[in-house]
């Protein structure tokens, strides 16, 4: 087996184990028999399994994939190992937009959320682009600027939460990212976006290898670099935004997943992209499962756990990074 196959099957196996664990455990422990019979025939535990744990399981996987792929695309296009949608302020923009609408119009149909988040994400992306357009910043400065914008957007969210006080768990969704209370209603609007964007990103994948050689060489090899850049960035922003629309900014997944994938299978995007997506799903799912099981019936936000893992890794990347 190649490293790619090993990573994919190993990760897949882990994902299945985690999925089973997350269905069985939580505030109430359920037996395997109960879960299986509930999955097929509903019954007493219908709500817990089919309408609480199962949708969260799916959302964790989808959102993790979305954030991870978005991270792969941004890192490739900006050629910056420190880039990721949350560090660039894109997630922040999407989160602010989604949260504003949800707080001011609580009855809105969740199907609108991805669209609104997209608007927010694109606005933030455009803002960064505009601030950078006058001079080409170094990768580290770009990261700093992105973080500064994220900080501003999250203080706006903070402020909104004062204007419209809500219950702590829901507030945490927008402050740190959490899957609390997310059900099937949130999956359906997410699906069409991911079903188009994920294959499209994979379609772009091998061109990103060429792009890594530099604009001039890539262009000489027949790549329309401008078009590739725009398409990849659009998909990156869209993927991050729709993911954030559902469960807030789950931080550092978009940074961590591509790096881990690169460690496992190298930097060829065709191999790395699926592995990164898998790792992203694993990260979010394990964070959410852990979040539900650390101190039941209380719940930690999943974003808190990914940050506890991701922030030290970011520091490690800084340590290794040479292009100051």
């Amino acid at each position, binding site marked *: 087996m190649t490293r790619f196959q090993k990573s994919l099957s190993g990760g897949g196996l882990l994902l299945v184990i985690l999925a089973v664990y997350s269905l069985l455990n939580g505030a109430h422990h359920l037996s395997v028999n109960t879960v299986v019979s509930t999955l097929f025939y509903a019954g007493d535990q219908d709500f817990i399994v089919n309408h609480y744990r199962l949708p969260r399981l799916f959302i964790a996987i989808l959102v993790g994939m979305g954030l991870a792929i978005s991270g792969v695309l941004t890192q490739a296009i900006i050629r910056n190992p420190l880039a990721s949608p949350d560090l660039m302020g894109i997630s922040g923009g999407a989160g602010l937009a989604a949260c504003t609408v949800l707080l001011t119009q609580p009855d809105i149909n969740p199907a609108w959320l991805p669209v609104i988040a997209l608007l927010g994400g694109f606005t933030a992306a455009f803002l960064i682009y505009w601030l950078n357009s006058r001079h080409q910043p170094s990768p580290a400065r770009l990261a700093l600027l992105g973080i500064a914008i994220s900080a501003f957007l999250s203080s706006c969210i903070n402020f909104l939460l004062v204007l419209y006080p809500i219950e702590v768990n829901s507030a945490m969704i927008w402050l740190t990212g959490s899957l609390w209370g997310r059900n099937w209603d949130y999956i359906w609007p997410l699906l069409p976006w991911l079903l188009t964007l994920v294959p499209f990103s994979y379609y772009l994948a091998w061109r990103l*290898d060429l792009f890594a050689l530099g604009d001039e060489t890539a*262009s000489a090899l027949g790549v329309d670099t401008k078009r590739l850049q725009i398409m990849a960035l659009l998909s990156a922003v869209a993927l991050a935004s729709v993911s954030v629309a559902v469960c807030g900014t789950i931080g550092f997944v978009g940074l961590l997943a591509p790096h881990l994938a690169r460690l496992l299978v190298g930097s060829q995007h065709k191999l790395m992209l699926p592995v990164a997506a898998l790792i992203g799903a694993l990260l979010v799912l394990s964070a959410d499962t852990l979040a539900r099981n650390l101190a039941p019936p209380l719940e930690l936000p999943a974003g808190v756990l990914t940050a506890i893992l991701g922030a030290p890794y970011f520091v490690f990347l800084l340590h290794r990074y040479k292009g100051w």
Partner: protein
Amino acid sequence: MINVENLTVGYGKKRILENLNVTIPKGKITALIGPNGCGKSTLLKSISGSLTPSTGTVSLVDQDLSQLNHKKRAQRLSILAQSPITPEGITVQQLVNFGRNPYLSHWGKLSEQDHHKVQLALQETELQDFANTALSSLSGGQRQRAWIAMILAQDTEYVLLDEPTTYLDLTHQVDLMEMMRTMNRQGKTIVVVLHDLNQASRYCDHLIVMKKGKIIAQDSPQEIFNDALLKEVFNLDALIMNDPVANKPMCIAL
């Protein structure tokens, strides 16, 4: 034959080349020489299409290059950039595979013929044994060979080289120049930016001398390589002698 007509290019408001007209002969090795900042790299980048000119056209024979899409253009013309980025962990084989990109379909799968061309390119540059070695672990000379192999795999009639010898030691410079000659003998038209005047005179059939965005002279080395030109373009007092090996003019700075 590459025809450049009324070319004006610049970065932002600053114009590097203005209304430039030049013809690069087919089947020959042409060198672009001139002092730093004279616009030779800019000219090369405009020909390759990685810089978009504000006015003017670049055409291969009669085909306007801006009318071709990126892939079609890359099937006819390749360029080795001055300082291409070496992605982390990429192997020589992977790099040379990239040379086949202009011929690939949407999903980027290499055909039997593509693999054959890649093997040929590796053979010609004597890199077969290094196919699975990481590019970053090769020496400077070998790495430059790998990039040449990528260009060979691209299999174009026109090849542009932007200061290919700059970071190499003398042995590898000669090695690279010889490779360039071999490519030329196989029928490729080559345009190369060089800093070493004697190298340009020795290995090239045609010189284009530039200064401050203008073309000062263009012809064979025997015709134009003289002390008056060197004084005018480089502000250099030099003695011109006959290179006993290549039987071409060479200069010694005074």
